[in-house]
C-alpha cells in the first residue's frame, strides 16, 4: 500500500450523491498519455518487441478485469476489448510501422488510428466502436511509454477512486476494490452518481480540488453530506469502514413494506433494466416501479422481434405481481442504431422518448402488442407508461393505443414541466403518473444533467421542482390515482420523507437503495413528512 507523508487534515466538500461512508487510500484515474515527440529509431527489432509487450500488457490487464467482475455483461465487453488488443492485423500493422522507422508509441498510435478510421467510416454500431479503439490506443501507448494505464486503476488493494468524471465505458471496469467514488466534475444525475447508487458505493461528485490530492493519501468519503476528509491515519480509516459496516448490517435487518412511523403505506418499488436485476433482494420490495426496456434495443440494426420482446417481458411479469413497464426511451440523446435518427443540434430538446413515435410509429405498436401478449401468457396485469409525454393529446393517443390492446393501467412519465402543469388534465386520460425527477429538473431549470458547473440547479430540493411535484400529487389525490417518483430522488433516504409529505404514493429506486429508504421512512410520521414538505 502506498504510504506518502500524511498531509495535514483537510476537508473538501462536494455533492453527496450516493449514501454511505468509507475510507481508504486515494488512487486517481490516469488520463490519456500525451504522445511525446518522435524519436529516431536505431533498432527496429527493439521497437517491435516493445509493441508486442505493450499489446500483451493491455490484453492481460483487460482479461484480469474481466475475471475480476461479477457483472457478466461487463466481462463480455472487457473480453471483446482484450481480443481487439491482441488482434493479429493490428499488431502486424504496428510492427510494419516500426520496421519503417517509427518508435513504438508512434507505431501503435498510427496502427490504432488506421483501424479506427476503417470502423468510423462504416458508420452505425461500428462507428461507436471507434471510441473503444481510442481507449485501447491510449492504454497501449501508455504501456509502451512505461506510464500508468489510463482507465480505472487496479492497484491490488482497496482504494477510493478519484477521477475528473467517469464515462459509461469506465464503469464497466469498476472492480470490487473500489471503496468509494469522488469526482471533480459531474452532478447528481451524472453516470457516476447513477452507477454508484446502483452498486451501493458511497459517492461524492463536483468535489473541487480532489484531483490535487496525491495518490495514496488516506481519505474518508461521506456520500450523504458530500464531505471528503483528507489526511486520515489508517486507524481512522478502519474505524470509518467498521462503522459503515455496522450501519449496513442494521439496515439489512429492515424488512417489509414501506410505511411511515404511524403506518401510512408508501410502496417501495424497484428500477430495473431486465429480469437479471431482480436479484434475491427483489422479494423484499413491493414490485417494479420502472422497467426500462432499452436493453432489448441496444446494439441492434433491427428492432427486437415481437416474440423476443414477449419472452423478455413475460420473464419479468412472472417474477413479480406489480410491474410498471416504460416503453422505449431512446432518441437523438440516447441514439440507437436501428432508429436511424439524424443527429440534432440540441438532442435533449429533440426527438426522444415518446416523440420517436412521430417518426417510427411501428416501434411503439409492436412493443405494446408484445407487452399485452406477455400479460396474457403470464396472467399478469402490467402497468404501462410512456416517457417524455408533453401534452394531453399525446397522453390520450398513448392511452387509446394501450387500452385497445387490453392494457388497463396506463400512465405517463412526468419529465417535462408542460406535463406537470397539466397533471389534472393528464389524469383525466390516464390511470397514474410517475415523476422522473432527473429530466424534470433538467427541463425545469434549463440545466444539462451532465453539466459539472450546474449541480446546484439540479438539487432535487429546489422549490420550483417541489412545486411541480406537488401539482402532480394534488391532481393524483383529487382523482384518487397513484402518483409515484421513479427518478434518482426516490432512492435518496433524506428526500423520501419530503416526497411522501408532498403526497407521493410510491418510490421506485435501485434495489440497493431500498433498505435505507425504508429505514428513514419508518422514523417519521406522515405529519412530520408533511411539515418537511410545507414551504
Amino acid at each position: 500500500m502506498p504510504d506518502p507523508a500524511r498531509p495535514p487534515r483537510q476537508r473538501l466538500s462536494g455533492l453527496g450523491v450516493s449514501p454511505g461512508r468509507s475510507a481508504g487510500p486515494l488512487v486517481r484515474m490516469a488520463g490519456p498519455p500525451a504522445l511525446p515527440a518522435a524519436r529516431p529509431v536505431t533498432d527496429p527489432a527493439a521497437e517491435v518487441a516493445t509493441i508486442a509487450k505493450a499489446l500483451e500488457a493491455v490484453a492481460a490487464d483487460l482479461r484480469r478485469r474481466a475475471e475480476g467482475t461479477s457483472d457478466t455483461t461487463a466481462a463480455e465487453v472487457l473480453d471483446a476489448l482484450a481480443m481487439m488488443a491482441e488482434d493479429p492485423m493490428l499488431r502486424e500493422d504496428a510492427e510494419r510501422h516500426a520496421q519503417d522507422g517509427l518508435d513504438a508509441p508512434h507505431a501503435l498510435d498510427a496502427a490504432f488510428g488506421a483501424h479506427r478510421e476503417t470502423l468510423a467510416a462504416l458508420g452505425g454500431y461500428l462507428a461507436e466502436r471507434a471510441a473503444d479503439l481510442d481507449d485501447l490506443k491510449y492504454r497501449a501507448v501508455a504501456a509502451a511509454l512505461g506510464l500508468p494505464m489510463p482507465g480505472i486503476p487496479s492497484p491490488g488493494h482497496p482504494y477510493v477512486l478519484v477521477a475528473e468524471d467517469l464515462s459509461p465505458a469506465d464503469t464497466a471496469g469498476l472492480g470490487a476494490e473500489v471503496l468509494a467514488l469522488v469526482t471533480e466534475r459531474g452532478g447528481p444525475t451524472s453516470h457516476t452518481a447513477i452507477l454508484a447508487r446502483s452498486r451501493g458505493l458511497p459517492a461524492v461528485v463536483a468535489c473541487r480540488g480532489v484531483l490535487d490530492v496525491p495518490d495514496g493519501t488516506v481519505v474518508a468519503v461521506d456520500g450523504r453530506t458530500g464531505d471528503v476528509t483528507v489526511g486520515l491515519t489508517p486507524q481512522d480509516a478502519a474505524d470509518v469502514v467498521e462503522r459503515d459496516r455496522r450501519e449496513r448490517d442494521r439496515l439489512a435487518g429492515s424488512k417489509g413494506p414501506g410505511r411511515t412511523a404511524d403506518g401510512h403505506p408508501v410502496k417501495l418499488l424497484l428500477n430495473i433494466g431486465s429480469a437479471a436485476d431482480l436479484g434475491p433482494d427483489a422479494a423484499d420490495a413491493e414490485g417494479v416501479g420502472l422497467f426500462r426496456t432499452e436493453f432489448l434495443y441496444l446494439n441492434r440494426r433491427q428492432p427486437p422481434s415481437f416474440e423476443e420482446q414477449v419472452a423478455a417481458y413475460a420473464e419479468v411479469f412472472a417474477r413479480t405481481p406489480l410491474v410498471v413497464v416504460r416503453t422505449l426511451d431512446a432518441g437523438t440523446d440516447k441514439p440507437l442504431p436501428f432508429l436511424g435518427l439524424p443527429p440534432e443540434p440540441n438532442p435533449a430538446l429533440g426527438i426522444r422518448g415518446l416523440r420517436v413515435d412521430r417518426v417510427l410509429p411501428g416501434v411503439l405498436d409492436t412493443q405494446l402488442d408484445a407487452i399485452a401478449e406477455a400479460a396474457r401468457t403470464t396472467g399478469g396485469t402490467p402497468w404501462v407508461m410512456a416517457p417524455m409525454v408533453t401534452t394531453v393529446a399525446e397522453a390520450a393517443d398513448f392511452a387509446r393505443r394501450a387500452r385497445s390492446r387490453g392494457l388497463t393501467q396506463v400512465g405517463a412519465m412526468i419529465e417535462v414541466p408542460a406535463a406537470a402543469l397539466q397533471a389534472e388534465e393528464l389524469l383525466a386520460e390516464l390511470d397514474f403518473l410517475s415523476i422522473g425527477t432527473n429530466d424534470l429538473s433538467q427541463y425545469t431549470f434549463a440545466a444539462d444533467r451532465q453539466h459539472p458547473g450546474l449541480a446546484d440547479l439540479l438539487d432535487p430540493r429546489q422549490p420550483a421542482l417541489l412545486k411541480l411535484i406537488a401539482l402532480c400529487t394534488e391532481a393524483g389525490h383529487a382523482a384518487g390515482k397513484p402518483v409515484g417518483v421513479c427518478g434518482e430522488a426516490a432512492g435518496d433516504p433524506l428526500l423520501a420523507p419530503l416526497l411522501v409529505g408532498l403526497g407521493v404514493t410510491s418510490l421506485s429506486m435501485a434495489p440497493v437503495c431500498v433498505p435505507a429508504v425504508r429505514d428513514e421512512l419508518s422514523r417519521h410520521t406522515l405529519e412530520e413528512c408533511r411539515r418537511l414538505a410545507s414551504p
Partner: protein
Amino acid sequence: MGLVHRTVIVASASGLHARPAKLFVQEAVRLGVPVRIRAGERTVPATSMLGVLSLGASRGTEVTLESDAPGAEEALDALAALLARDLDAEETLDA
C-alpha cells in the same frame, strides 16, 4: 492440399458484430487453423476481431471462408455452422 472454401449466409440478428463477431473470432483462435473470411472485395484473417468487424457484414450477408491449411475441412465446417446460427437469439436474457 488445395484451397477449401465454404459460402454461408450470416444468420445473427445483429450481423457479424458485437457478440457474434466475438464468438466467431474466439472459435477461429481456438481451432488454430489459419482461415480467411471474405465479404465482397474484402478478405481478412478469421482470427482478427478488427478485420471481421471491418467486413461490415449484417444479417443476410453472404461470406466465404477459405483455407488451404491441414485440418481446413473440419475448421471451415465448424466456423460455417457458427455463422449459420442466430447467435444473438441464443444470448440468454439473464446472462
